[in-house]
């Protein structure tokens, strides 16, 4: 691995990685069962440098911002490398956002260059909002069909220059990325992440989960996801490892990829991990009685011998067929983005497949705590990573309080929002808004949220303010969206739901027509953003002098209602 303490920037480290590991395989891209591309680090450089030079020729320079909106593929990484090489700031955006949300964030981030895929651009090009993002000067589109009108964009594949690009150095404290943790509805939260944030996080994570040439990391999360950016791009590249991109999340192709590419690590969100568990469990259940008993016996033996630490060699011998299905080289499944149920974690560990679960938030870099597997604990989110200071503030009698974090991996603040930045920090500590406690072994146990938001099993952060626009002009007196667990605090990190609080007009009833209207609006939201039910409150919502709803006070009033009877499911 490169000694990252010697580097000032992501770009400088990646530049050296490409020459240090020139002949190692760097990227494999597969679409379903078809391998589309296989590049060495040298090949990668040959793809990226002409792009970097063309960007420079187009006037892209230090601190200019470039956004990438792409699905999971190799051109994401090649484009990101070119941006860092030229000293630019990267704005990775989630391709699952709507076109209007994309334009809103492109405007907010003052993006100069947009790099995207043709199917995404087809929707973006004619969407309202394009005119507002007036800083966007250049759009590069990958994989566009021949003879297609690109609505002012240029073909990524043809945007190349033959002369060598000039490497632009950056300092550790310079902004490397602007990562949006949420806020597409009203108040974009663009986390300003420095080069130091990433360099320090990479050192901390690879100290527990090392990469080396020959390691193969399966990337199925898009690289805008903080975990994939670190363990599916920067981490493996600075160690000479190989990233295998799979351009589909279809469970059958994910399962096939493990043995086909002899995967060493993979990162998953809980939803995908649970799907794998379900598939395995179904196969176990189909086994005839005797075979099932033998399997249970070997699982029992494996459990007994891996209590204190994983023993991969032994587990692969005891449960050979299961490990063969995963390629026989799998060292750990990294799971993050949302809370994972302990039962799922334990299921895999009992099969001899360690699951590195942890806890993190965009504002603090990729991860704050990670399970170090010594011993494996399914009931916690692990211990703080090296270099992370974590404390519990205002603990209740049971030790549960708000989790605060301080480290070199924490963002410098929110872009264009000094007020929110001040609210988020306290004497240099990041206030996470999550509730938890430490146990005697130093493991963090999360138990709920203090903040008004939910995290889905797909690892999506949903803030009520971001979805309220869809209910604008609803024929009621007032409305407001809440995370149900914020109103009625619950010591749980799973099954989180949003509710729509309504104050009806005088003599107005909650009719079927109104319900149908709400459902129709709700359905315009992506399925994971939808509200679960309605709560009726027959009083005026408390408001500030500027007529903004006082959400915390309104939440206190709603909390007087009985949760189970107050929420009317949609």
């Amino acid at each position, binding site marked *: 691995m490169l000694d990252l303490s010697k580097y000032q920037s992501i770009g400088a480290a990646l530049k050296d990685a490409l020459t240090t590991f020139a002949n190692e395989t760097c990227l494999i891209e597969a679409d379903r069962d078809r391998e589309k591309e296989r590049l060495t680090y040298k090949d990668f450089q040959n793809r990226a440098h002409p792009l970097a030079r063309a960007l420079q020729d187009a006037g892209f320079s230090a601190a200019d911002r470039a956004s990438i909106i792409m699905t999971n593929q190799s051109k994401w990484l090649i484009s990101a490398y070119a941006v860092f090489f030229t000293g630019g700031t990267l704005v990775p955006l989630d391709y699952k956002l709507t076109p209007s949300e994309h334009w809103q964030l492109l405007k907010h981030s003052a993006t100069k260059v947009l790099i995207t895929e043709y199917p995404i651009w087809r929707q973006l090009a004619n969407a309202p909002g394009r005119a507002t993002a007036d800083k966007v000067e250049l759009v590069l589109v990958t994989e566009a069909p021949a003879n297609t009108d690109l609505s002012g964009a240029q073909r990524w594949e043809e945007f190349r220059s033959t002369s060598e690009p000039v490497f632009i150095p950056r300092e550790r404290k310079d902004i490397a990325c602007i990562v949006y943790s949420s806020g597409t509805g009203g108040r974009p939260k663009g986390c300003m992440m420095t080069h130091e944030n990433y360099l320090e996080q990479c050192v901390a994570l690879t100290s527990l989960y090392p990469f080396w040439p020959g390691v193969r990391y399966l990337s199925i999360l898009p690289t805008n996801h903080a975990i994939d950016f670190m363990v599916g791009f920067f981490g493996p590249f600075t160690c000479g490892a190989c990233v295998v991109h799979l351009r589909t*999340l279809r469970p059958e192709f994910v399962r096939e990829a493990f043995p086909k590419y002899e995967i060493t690590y993979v990162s998953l969100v809980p939803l*995908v991990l649970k799907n794998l568990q379900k598939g395995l469990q179904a196969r176990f259940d189909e086994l005839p009685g005797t075979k099932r008993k033998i399997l249970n016996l070997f699982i029992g033996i494996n459990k007994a011998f891996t209590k204190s630490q994983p023993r991969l060699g032994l587990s692969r011998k005891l449960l050979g067929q299961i490990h063969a299905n995963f390629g026989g080289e799998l060292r750990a499944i990294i799971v993050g983005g949302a809370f994972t149920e302990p039962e799922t974690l334990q299921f895999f560990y009992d099969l001899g497949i360690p699951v590195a679960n942890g806890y993190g938030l965009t504002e603090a870099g990729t991860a704050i705590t990670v399970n170090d597997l010594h011993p494996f604990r399914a009931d916690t989110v692990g211990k703080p990573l090296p270099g992370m200071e974590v404390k519990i503030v205002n603990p209740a009698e049971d030790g549960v309080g708000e989790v605060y974090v301080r480290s070199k991996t924490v963002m410098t603040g929110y872009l264009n929002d000094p007020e929110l930045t001040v609210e988020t920090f306290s004497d240099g500590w990041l206030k996470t808004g999550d509730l938890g406690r430490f146990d005697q072994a130093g493991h963090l146990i999360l138990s709920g949220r203090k903040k008004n938001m939910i995290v889905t099993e797909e690892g999506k952060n949903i803030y009520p303010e971001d979805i309220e626009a869809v209910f604008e002009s609803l024929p009621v007196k007032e409305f407001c969206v809440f995370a149900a667990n914020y109103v009625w605090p619950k010591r749980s990190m799973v099954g989180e739901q949003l509710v729509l609080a309504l104050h009806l007009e005088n003599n107005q009833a909650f009719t079927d027509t109104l319900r149908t209207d709400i459902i129709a609006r709700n*359905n315009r939201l992506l399925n994971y953003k939808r509200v679960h039910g309605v709560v009726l409150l027959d009083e005026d919502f408390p408001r500030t002098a500027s007529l903004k709803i006082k959400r915390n006070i309104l939440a206190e009033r709603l909390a007087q209602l009985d949760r189970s009877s107050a929420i009317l499911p949609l």
Partner: protein
Amino acid sequence: MRNLEQTTQEVLDLATQHFRVTPGTLSPSDDFFKKLGIDSLQALELLSRLENHFGIELPDYEVQGVSNFRTLAERIQSRL
């Protein structure tokens, strides 16, 4: 070639078989996440079955944001 109505009916029939629901209970405007109580990965599994049936390929991206059978059928129809 099939028309949209036929495609929609075949999508409904395959979803009925795949998720083992009572025949005739699904309709084109149904939100399949809600009606079937499925998550996005289960929806992708249905997609694979639909691809095999119709002999087409639908990239994951093309069906992102689609949550009712009619729109799903339209996406399939555009590739037939």
